[in-house]
């Protein structure tokens, strides 16, 4: 490779990194300036000490975990069954799971509110638990494209049909096959879907705000509109969480010991 080409490569790379990191650095730097004249973690301390932060953040974490559980319960058996018994339906199912990317969250939530309001046949919005459940369902829909793709990609790496038959001939029923044969073998894929779901749910605003639940997204928005330094500290924290999720995806992919090294 010529010196010129190499140089161009480096310049493009540096530009890209700069484009991405300089605003972040500015953000971080500003978030440390809460005390006049010196850098300090005051803004972070304030945020973390804020009971509302603790409440909304733990609420969103719990919602994320519930959403992940729903996602796994819906997606793993579906993707498994489609691969095993109705491969012709795969394009349709794939299309269906992609819909949430096309339909705005606000449309989904208005649909929910119309369908499940207090005067409907299933008044979910009438109770706190019902609304929470509705929110989790909404999150599950939003995360569906990522979860389904991740799991389906994972299923592609194993011979689903033969492994299923092997397990059946050894006496296993469907539940055993799913939990002991299929799920463990697509676990890295399921986990990467789970971390994506987590990142989506933690930052989600529309559904939580319109269903009026005390989630982290609306809190972020409120702080951002009302405080000087704390929003920037919050942004840094949110970035850290997202990156931790990405890092964990890498980790589980690398440390699934029974998998052959991908070459």
């Amino acid at each position, binding site marked *: 490779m010529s010196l010129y080409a190499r140089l161009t490569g480096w310049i493009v790379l540096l530009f890209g990194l700069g484009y991405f990191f300089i605003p972040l650095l500015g953000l971080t730097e500003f978030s440390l300036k809460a005390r006049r004249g010196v850098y300090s973690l005051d803004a972070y301390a304030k945020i973390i000490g804020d009971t509302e932060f603790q409440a909304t953040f733990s609420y969103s974490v719990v919602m994320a975990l519930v959403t992940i559980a729903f996602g796994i319960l819906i997606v793993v058996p579906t993707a498994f069954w489609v691969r095993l018994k109705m491969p012709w339906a795969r394009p349709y199912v794939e299309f269906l799971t992609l819909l949430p990317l096309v339909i705005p969250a606000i449309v989904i939530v208005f649909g929910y509110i119309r369908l499940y309001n207090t005067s409907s046949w299933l008044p979910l919005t009438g109770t706190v638990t019902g609304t929470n459940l509705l929110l989790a369902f909404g999150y599950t829909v939003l995360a569906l494209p990522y979860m389904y793709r991740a799991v389906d990609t994972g299923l592609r790496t194993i011979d689903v049909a*033969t492994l299923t038959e092997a397990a059946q001939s050894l006496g296993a*029923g469907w539940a055993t096959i799913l939990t002991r044969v299929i799920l463990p073998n697509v676990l890295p894929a399921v986990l990467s879907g789970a971390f994506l779901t987590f990142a989506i749910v933690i930052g989600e605003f529309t559904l939580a705000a319109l269903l009026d639940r005390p989630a982290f997204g609306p809190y972020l928005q409120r702080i951002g509109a009302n405080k000087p330094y704390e929003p920037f500290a919050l942004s840094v924290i949110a970035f850290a969480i997202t990156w931790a999720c990405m890092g964990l995806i890498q980790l589980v992919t690398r440390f699934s*010991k029974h998998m052959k090294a991908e070459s």
Partner: protein
Amino acid sequence: MPYLEIARLEKSFGANRVVTDFNLGVEQGEFISLLGPSGCGKTTVLRMVAGFERPSSGAIRIGSEDVVGKRPNQRNIGMVFQAYALFPNLTVAENVGFGLKIKGARRDEITARVAEMLALIGLPDLGARYPFQLSGGQQQRVALARALAPKPRVLLLDEPLSALDAKVRVSLRNEIRAIQRDLGITTIFVTHDQEEALSISDRIVVMNAGIADQVGTPFEIYNRPTTRFVANFVGQLNLFKADDAGRIGGVAVGQGDFAARPEAVHLGREAESDIVLPATVEEVHFLGSVIRVTAAAAGARIALDTFNRPDMPPPAVGSAVELSLSSRDLIPLK
């Protein structure tokens, strides 16, 4: 009464009839091979016995119990696949113990049985490995141990050796047979390789286009094939046509076509041979203990095998020779 009985079994996929009027009785402890070309329905028969396909009609009985309505996981049938199909997330020991664990066996029972099975397949020290750390032959042995561990009533093997290289294939087929004899387990073995079927089976079912053409011991199948298809598919064959008077080489044999195995045809005149044909040597292959000669005689190409003898060099290509065979060795073809 046979232990495993298949009666008037039929299977169609849509309009495509894949198995037709298949009948077979397998005695307890018997080793049966289903032999036939690719696509003739062997796997489909096996999958119906295992419960993965539903017969269009017919009965399958194991120990006089009809199993057709039963799901595969209720049949207690061991299955070995061409692609090994070991669970990649489980160790060798966990794979072998899988069936017992599902049956709810105690942990110490499982450990003992797994050790016993691993010893049986000659891999006592590999229990902690994962499947991807094993060779193909080792993986298939583990798959065999896994299928046998829960003491199934019947063992089914679907071309278990096809993915292995030639040397492993021969040693593993002998090992499978030895283990099968040892345990006395009723076994159906599917293969398209006639040598494999001939060498290890108690009886062979030769299948052609979904129909069981002939059922018999390897000796019967090879020496007395009852259909042209079986004669052609199993072993090598020389075709002889009788003349209008029903004679071959001047000897009356009856009308029609006849076949003779290469080892039934002799170079030169043999005492017991009544048919003698003049021939020209076309090819000579020296294979060591056996010499295979191809010669043109009576308007056909005849292959014959003779044993090597240090005092008798093989004939030269192009030389004129006499071939002889006994009319009793002729196989009439239907």
